[in-house]
């Protein structure tokens, strides 16, 4: 009887350890991609923010400007609360037109210290 109980506890503990390993592996897997994104952010001079941290900005009523760079029809369907739309195409990344530059500056205003949250459709 005691042996059966001992074996059951062992099996349970092994299971718990395995679950933790799998969960940790999942987290490690997620952070590999995030690390690459962080590297790019560092090189390009901006910060990364997770969806959860962005949610906290809304919950704590922080002052920031949200910019949605998706096409206008996607923005119009739905977007983050109070987000403004400045449509970027992939070609804008390396070379921005003067017209787009003016639109961006007009949307963000003159205060260069303002906090800006920028997002696209997904990870592209």
């Amino acid at each position, binding site marked *: 009887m005691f042996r059966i109980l001992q074996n059951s506890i062992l099996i349970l503990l092994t299971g718990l350890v395995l679950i933790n390993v799998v969960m940790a592996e999942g987290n490690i897997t997620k952070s590999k991609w995030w690390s690459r994104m962080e590297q790019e952010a560092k090189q390009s001079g*901006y910060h990364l923010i997770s969806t959860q941290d962005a949610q906290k900005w809304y919950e704590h009523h922080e002052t920031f400007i949200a910019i949605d760079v998706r096409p206008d029809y996607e923005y119009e369907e739905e977007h*983050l609360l109070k987000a403004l739309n400045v449509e970027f195409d992939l070609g*804008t990344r390396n070379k921005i037109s003067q017209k787009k530059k003016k639109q*961006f500056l007009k949307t963000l205003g003159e205060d260069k210290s303002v906090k800006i949250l920028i997002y696209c459709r997904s*990870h*592209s």
Partner: protein
Amino acid sequence: MRLGYKNVYRMPTGFFGWKKDILKHDDLVNNDQMLGKYFPECQFVSINRTQDYLYLGIDQSARKIRLTDIRSQFIYVSLFNEMCSQCVEEIKQYGLLYKFFQHDAKFKNTVKIIGIGAGSSHRGVKKFIKHHNIPYPVFVDKNWDIFKCLGEPPLPVAYLLKKESGSKIKIVSIRNEHIESIADVLKEIGSIIY
């Protein structure tokens, strides 16, 4: 491009990530609605003609390449844009995949890899191939036609296509998650092909 703003935060998982994580919507990236459908019919002009034709098994007299002409049952298509940084990351991974396929007797004649530059120019793709030393054929979807037929998916995205009878090519797998390990991609492809 910061225009002097110092406190710029990018949410890399984007609006889809927001819907999934915060709004708990899972029915999002409708990219998967293309699964099981036929890949749009398309013809391409080769950039590295001799090399591309040889790899894909295309007759040298053919002026353009159609996917149906490629001599393999499966085709792995990487859809990208050269301005998309995540695409660039993945291109490097697909270079490794290409090398693996070429050295593996099982995969070598069963699956071919190609890239399609969505919204890219011929010149842009040529420079891109040279700059990143891409070993597999890359073609141009200059006017976003293929991209639009595929439902304007978030880039990068990769499709595993299977040739069926009657010049139809079916989408049997779609990869729209970032690649953590090329071994995962190999496993995925292997499980479908074999």
